[in-house]
């Protein structure tokens, strides 16, 4: 159970696929418009429940509870060998390498 007062992330469907705007590419028209927000959980709940949260600006937003204590997972990425090659090439052209 997720306790009232925890910082959580919720998910919503803003528009079903059938309700999407005209003049969209076909692939986008086939999927719903989805939304994610974060806030403080206003009552005890389970993951997957429809809940209410109070957001950072004090708005009350409703949605499906999907994550407790959400955190960022983006990073500086995995190794890209091409970058080493660029660095070496630039130094070679400018300074003649490590002679």
């Amino acid at each position, binding site marked *: 159970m997720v306790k009232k007062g925890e910082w959580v992330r919720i998910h919503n469907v803003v*528009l079903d696929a059938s*309700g999407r*705007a005209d003049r*969209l590419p076909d692939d986008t028209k086939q999927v719903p418009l989805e939304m994610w927000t974060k806030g403080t959980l206003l009552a005890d709940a389970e993951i997957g429940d429809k809940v209410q949260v109070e957001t*950072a600006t004090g708005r009350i937003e409703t949605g499906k509870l999907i994550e407790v204590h959400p955190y960022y997972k983006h990073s*500086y*990425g995995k190794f890209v060998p091409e970058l080493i090659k*660029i660095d070496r090439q630039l130094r070679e052209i*400018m300074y003649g390498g490590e002679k």
Partner: protein
Amino acid sequence: MALAKDYASVMGRSNEIMKTALGLDYQDFESGSVRFDYETLMKSTGYTLDEVNRIQTLTGVGHTPLLELRNISALSRKYAKPGYGARIFAKDEAANPSGSFKARRAATAVYHAKKLGYKGVIAATSGNYGAAVASQAAMQGLKCIIVQECYDSRGVGQPEIVEKARHCEAYGAEVVQLTVGPELFYTFLSLLEDTGYFNASLYSPFGIAGVETLGYEIAMQCREMLGKDPEVVVCTNAGGGMITGTARGLLKAGATETEFIGASIDLTGLHMASDKQFNLKSCTTGHTGFGVPYATDPDHSDVPRSAARPLRYMDRYVYVTQGEVFYITEALANLDGIERGPAGNTALAAAFSLAQDYPEDAVIVISETEYTGAGKHIQPQLDFARDNGIEIYFGNPSEDKPGTNIVLPGDPSLIRCREADIDRMRASLIRKSVAAHNPNPTAEDIAFLAEETKTDEAFVRSVLEQ
């Protein structure tokens, strides 16, 4: 009685919502035909350039260093004919409080919102502008909501945009994230209506007035450091606000001889509203997906009339590739010792190539740098591309195919910006304006369209006769 919040109802109230959320009635600037009074719109902020400078200085915005990129200039010169290879300078806008020139746009908008008594501000942006508004809202004690297009239907976020969400939250803002699609505007309008907050639009006159100080500073710094105005200013172009505001600022400083060149990453072939193609982009701004539609139809933004009108100021428009921008970003860090971008380095990739066509004593200024962070850096962006099936290899950037490959230039001589057909874009703007407002344009409309496209009445008439 509660207002109906379905899509059609909210979109139907768009004009009223905008009027309330901007404190401006755009009808005041309309002629009833094609022409509208652009300069009166710009004056409607009520702030002079000096006042904007004062407002920005209150929160530490602006007065950023102008750095000579000596080693990148020297590298470029190696590929120029004798006596050629201009000096390249960068306005280090990453030194602004939120890490980009967008702090200038946000400072003026948030100051104005506070003065008018709004309790909070909302902006629709997946870019650096979100953090800029959030940072200013924090400094000026207002609430802030940022609405982002961030994920595809698999829930996979662009690393560059996810980083920008984190940056907004760091300043205490609420971030509302959406999947791909222009109906973001519906959520945005609905939030404006529910909260009564100010629409801190990128395209309001407050936002653009905020960029004028950037152009003005470039002129003053060049005169102090070099004793002259820059021959060329290159601006990364997406929504058009950068080149509009920068050019206006330079012109206000009297730099009437400076050539203004817009630069965008060529993403031709990728549809910006496509769910499947969303994550095939490896740069989320500074590209033609924004640059071309906003140049040819500036008024399709989140305000009734955009204050960002790039074709009014642009002398040339050039394209570079994602691979060229990634390469030059690595060069900027490795040769000139500053880690910035990558998207903000679009103008630098173009300047590297353009410099070879100008004499050694000519000065080319790129109007911005931007901060670098997790997700917003060449390594995660290239890694993300590879994970999404994009082929990355060294070769000739002319082989570039957006969404399929990223061709890193095999050597710096292969970095060559390509001239976009600006006359075609000018013609497109003229046709769209006439179609939207009056199929039988008046003499005043023709004069207006010549100003809109930096051409003359003969050009406008020739387009209309085709």
